[in-house]
């Protein structure tokens, strides 16, 4: 498989976390990960979506971009491109600490694009067999 890309854009509302989980699971399956890896990726991406979502009250959007990197693994970017005002910085949310433990344990690489306690984007990578 070459460098295939998949995109998903959902309202930043708790009821759409299920859509993120199911889509992530499907993309990871198509990419060729095994059952345990698919579960890891699904859980990590849902945590990322939850962290970004919990920073703001009210409607915004969450964008996900999946890049299947050939025979190596998958890059996933989770972002909130339209969010201008943050009402709850993630650093004030104890839940976020648990989320990061989970993400960083299950994925091979997790990068935060943050400013003033606000995470605008999370990038994560999982290698096949990693």
């Amino acid at each position: 498989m070459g460098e295939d890309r998949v995109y998903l854009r959902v309202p930043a509302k708790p009821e759409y976390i299920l859509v993120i989980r199911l889509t992530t699971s499907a993309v990871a399956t198509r990419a060729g990960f095994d059952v345990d890896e698919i579960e890891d990726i699904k859980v990590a991406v849902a945590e990322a979506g939850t962290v970004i979502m919990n920073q703001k009250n009210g409607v915004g959007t969450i964008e996900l971009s999946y890049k299947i990197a050939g025979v190596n693994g998958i890059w996933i970017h989770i972002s909130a491109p339209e969010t201008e005002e943050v009402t709850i910085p993630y650093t004030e949310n104890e839940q976020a600490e648990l989320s990061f433990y989970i993400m960083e344990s299950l994925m091979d690489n997790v990068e935060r694009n943050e400013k003033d306690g606000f995470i605008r984007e999370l990038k994560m990578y999982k290698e096949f067999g990693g």
Partner: protein
Amino acid sequence: MNIAHRYNSATNSWEVSLSGEVDVYNAPQLKDALHSLLDEKVADMIIDCKELKYIDSTGLGVLIGVLKRIKDNNGNDSGNITITNLKPYIEKIFKITGLDKIFLIEVQE
């Protein structure tokens, strides 16, 4: 997500059966349900997760809050939540977060 419960007077504990998926959408419902049991009677909890398919950090946060309330009520740090029949891939989340040290965990065979 579904929650069923009964009070076991012999063991002085709430027996809760938790099934389905717990995430940021329905974690508030789980929180309300478990705290309403404690409103009725503060006691240890045994949570059967045989049919639990998924739980995220918000669900874990609810369980932490409930355990804290039980311990605060009892004083001297006593009181427990026992989590039974966890699927191995969910137990992994408890281990990653260190929560296997604060809850009593029994894994599904």
